[in-house]
């Protein structure tokens, strides 16, 4: 049963700068691949049907839902997860703002939320609070009520703008 889904493919992909050549079943989604095959448990699974955003990662610089992305689709692609973005320091200021503003409680949505917010911040230097709220609406947070997250994103962008002046 599930013959097609269990067919194994060879894929080569780069995760956080490290190239991996692996054999994976067709059905293995990227979130499971990252968590179970590579041990990168910072990518969280909340719904496995693309709604909650907890599994948000970057593929070729664009944010994707790792639970809706099959690993075989990532052949030749560049993936970045919260582990890589933390090590590179790229979002260190946003992470610090999350800590200072208590923009996370249980922390389960946080890696996805940080990556989703960073995508907006890369293209919009000073979005309104409404725009920030719109952009992160594909990422559910059940703890904070979102306001602290919006504050943290806003504070980080303001600091970046000031630093750029």
């Amino acid at each position, binding site marked *: 049963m599930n013959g097609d889904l269990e067919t194994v493919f060879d894929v080569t992909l780069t995760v956080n700068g490290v190239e991996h050549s692996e054999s994976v079943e067709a059905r293995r989604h990227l979130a499971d691949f990252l968590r179970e095959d590579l041990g990168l448990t910072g*990518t969280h699974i909340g719904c496995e049907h693309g709604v909650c955003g907890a599994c948000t990662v970057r593929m070729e610089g664009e944010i994707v839902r790792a639970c809706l992305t099959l690993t075989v689709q990532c052949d030749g692609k560049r993936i970045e997860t919260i582990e890589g973005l933390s090590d590179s320091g790229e979002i260190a200021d946003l992470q610090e703002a999350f800590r200072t503003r*208590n923009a*996370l*409680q249980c*922390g389960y949505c946080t890696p996805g939320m940080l990556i989703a917010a960073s995508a907006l911040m890369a293209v919009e230097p000073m979005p309104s609070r409404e725009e920030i709220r719109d952009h992160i609406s594909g990422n559910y947070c059940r703890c904070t009520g979102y306001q602290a997250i919006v504050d943290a994103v806003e504070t980080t962008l303001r600091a970046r703008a000031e630093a750029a002046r």
Partner: protein
Amino acid sequence: MTRDVPSPLTALDRPNSYIGRSVPRPNLARLTEGRGEYVSDLVLPRMVHVVYVRSPHAHAEIRAIDVSAAKKAKGVVAVVTGAEMAEVCTPWVGVLTHMVGLKSAPQHPMAVTRACWQGEAVVAVIARTRALAEDAAELVEIDYAPLPPVTDMSTALDPETPVIHESLGDNLAFERNYTGGDPAAAFAASDHVIETDFSFGRHTGVTLEPRAMVADFNPGTGRLTAYLGTQAPHMIQNILSIHLGMPESDIRVVCKDVGGSFGIKVHVYADEMATATLSKMLKRPVKFVADRLESFLTDIHARDHRVKGKIGVMKDGTITAFEIDDLTGIGPYSVYPRTSAVEANQVVNLTGGPYICMNYKARARVVFQNKNVTCQYRAVGHPIATAVTEGLVDLAAQRIGMDPVEIRRKNLIKDDAYPCNSATGLKFESLSHHAALNKLLGMMDYEKLRAEQAELRKKGIHRGIGFASFIEITNPGAAFYGVGGARISSQDGAVVRLDATGAVTCQTSATEQGQGTEAVIAQVVATSVGVSLDRVRIISGDTDQTPYGGGTWASRAAGIGGEAAWQAGKALRENIVAVAAAILQADPKSLDVREGAVVDADTGRERIALPELGRIVYFRPDTLPTGFQAELMAVRHYVPRGYPFAFTNGIQASYLEVEDGFVKLLGHWVVEDCGTILNPQLVDEQVRGGVVQGLGGALFEHCVYDADGQMQNANMADYLVPMACEMPDIQVGHVVSPTADSELGAKGAGEAGTAGAPGAVMNAINDALSPFGVTLTHMPFTPDRILTAMREAERRQKRQAAE
């Protein structure tokens, strides 16, 4: 951004106090870097994965089970039925003796002969990987004979409705009747009596990390370690011990990071008991992680109440009496061990609670049905009692043409009336309804909003303002569970230790669920011992490592666990001073500990730093005076004894616009009195998060069942939760009335937001729609319901005009 608020501290006002400061939580760095340790991340040697085959029927007899094909499938380790499991794990009954008359039926980890709700586990399939277990689960053949399901709570007690558990005689789990004062005479003497029906949609917590457990029975040690995202580790230890027939000392419950709990993770779940049983049976670690579809069908649901409400009022605005008749459906079993009668009981206890009025009549009936079980979820009963009370108060004000603020001013218990009792005998130590109301009106600029509302109404824009005053139960003593026979601790403990480098470790029985317990305990310990915050490390969530205690529920961690830590820290400071006095040949009374050093209490001059003191105690005790034994570890426990509960109070206001049936939230204000504020930012964020969960229940969240007991929207796409773009900024203010029961004076703050938000939003919607003669009282207030109500009102008005 959150500002520190002045606090009225006295004994707490130590030099360099961290009490009342918004210090960040120590555990956030790793969580922002994806370095959390959630149970779903955990991998152990020899670990296997369990998947449960669940009943697709709300009610069905299990005629036969064929597991032969599944057993042969790739990677399968075992396939276990409910009957096989029942030989290892005994059944339980979710009752408490102080809930007089509460009954329930024995529940097994998995259904044995009959499934009683859609989603009940029937067969366990255990395999090397989760995917292989799911593949094999599809090969399990179960022959069901569907039975008539009981789904409508309003007919559950009718004689023609089938009885779910024959041995119980009927579908009534619990009934409570209460009369205070003379409500019949008060209603008869009222100028107006207003009645209406309220309903509250069944909803659930939707923790972003689903429930997860790794159970690891090691036959070599005879011990079972349960890694579980739970709010109450010692409670789980006790329950596993009872039903697996193992000594409590052979069971360890470990709780590291928890991906959201909100009350969802404080209960005993059948599939978690099954997972522990499987580990014992298979003698290896077994991992269970619910997927989102399973979460919706098996995480406890809550609310699902229908309440007939009645209020009496005089022309001058005096409220004369309240009456409620509450009916709630709880699923087929009362949940173990906290029971499913508590929410209805709270509705009876709390309705009318903020008001002077002492005439009160209440009935609550709790009925069984073939749907998922309901139990305690954040703010248990409070959102219902508050919305009913505040909805009735607004209807009364509307009837007599009084401003909603004025009727509250007239009837809220006066701030100088304490201590006093409620109509149901609840004991209030010190509340601040009027101070809170006044502060709220200032924060929101009430007059300006009313003027804006009137102006916009002329343009056909319909905005509304709604209020909800409320009381909230926090810091419960033994009255909740202990007196009913449940082995759920109401006391908490703390162990505080100074090590040889001057660092301090605190083991606490309070648990961290993301609300910031560890930060608050660290602040308290740093302050009471006299060290800087970065020298304090907290250990929690491990029954092998922490004192025995209750954990985190009912807004108790800071108030009870915090006080235990405060007292333990003080005791350690005394012990440190005793050592220093012996070394320095000084009077202990002349010494204090500040910023990591023993100092002269009068001048603050440093006498000996803690690392040096630690060095002497641990490595050169021979230099201490003969007969002196240093004790650099102190233990204290605490439970409130003065009052059964530390009541808090608050008020919320909502400002919103209704357009095309959609509710746009424009502003939300909260004034909360949770006593001493240990960490203002954490309190405010608990309030905000709580408000948004309350708004979810009021506007979106609803477990929709059909008449056959099939949940229609058991996935995250169809079950709506609040999104960032739908939520307003929430302004939070405080009044501070500390409880004198503890030195810290802290009351709970975790649930107040959820308690008040639905009532405030309901009143604001009805204020917005008042020109249409529409009153909505059935949550959630979806666009469909709002438009239907407006259309009905329009037809009614046309009919009246024609007549």
